[in-house]
């Protein structure tokens, strides 16, 4: 607690101003206690913000899996989708996301082969098959699940316009009309912030 309040000397003791000062102090203490209890309340629910910038098949998974799991923990979750990350929320495009065969060190083929037309589609099909065999959820299932569990999936307005998308292109329940300031505000309040 603060100790730098001036101690009134016996000479300038004025009962009226002492009483007023005491009253002011009491009010200040009440105010501080109120703001402290607000802070305590705010700490109860953890917050997570993920910025999803990528729209390839493999990069759609991490934000959706972490977001829906965090929601299962009861956290307040925002996933801010921007640039190619918007395609995850795009009802049509999300069903057609591709795995890139070129420049992917996990692909069992040289880049020169991977660059042949149709290779991305083949790589994506192979991955889809593995996902099905493993019982891993599809991207569409994870989007439904995220929305159902209260994850706030946001579509960055600037990139919606840049990509010539329309609000109706996105899944029902996606938040549109938000920008960097909205994302930053949630990030500032978040316990965890991730860029994917």
């Amino acid at each position, binding site marked *: 607690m603060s100790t730098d309040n001036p101690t009134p000397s016996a000479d300038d003791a004025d009962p009226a101003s002492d009483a007023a000062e005491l009253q002011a102090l009491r009010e200040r203490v009440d105010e501080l206690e109120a703001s402290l209890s607000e802070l305590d309340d705010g700490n109860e629910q953890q917050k997570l913000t993920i910025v999803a910038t990528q729209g390839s098949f493999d990069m759609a998974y991490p934000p959706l*899996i972490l977001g*829906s*799991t965090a*929601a*299962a*923990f*009861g956290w307040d979750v925002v996933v801010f989708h921007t640039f190619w990350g918007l395609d995850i929320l795009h009802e049509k495009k999300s069903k057609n996301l591709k795995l890139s065969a070129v420049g992917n060190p996990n692909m069992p083929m040289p880049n020169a082969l991977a660059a042949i037309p149709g290779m991305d589609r083949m790589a994506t099909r192979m991955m889809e098959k593995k996902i099905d065999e*493993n*019982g*891993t*959820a599809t991207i569409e299932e*994870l989007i439904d*699940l995220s929305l159902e*569990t209260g994850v706030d999936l946001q579509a960055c307005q600037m990139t919606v316009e840049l990509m010539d998308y329309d609000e109706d292109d996105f899944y029902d329940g996606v938040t549109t009309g938000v920008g960097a300031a909205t994302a930053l505000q949630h990030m500032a309040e978040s316990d965890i912030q991730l860029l994917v």
Partner: protein
Amino acid sequence: MSSEYDATETLDVKGQSCPMPIVKTKQAIDDLESGDLLEVVATDSGSMSDIQGWAAGTSGVELLDQVEDDDLYTHYVKKTE
């Protein structure tokens, strides 16, 4: 399978992998009453650690037991609030 617990409800997430066992468990718990016991049957070996972590980080639930039997992982989660 253990008959030691008298589960209110059984959730079957066999064949499903991360994050489904956790998310479905959370949804099933939400639909139960305080004091109810949920039995979760999974084939995902990661669910052993994940359900533990989820239960530890979630208020109002208590993980009573986890039973591993061949490739089946059974979890007993009690709703306490």
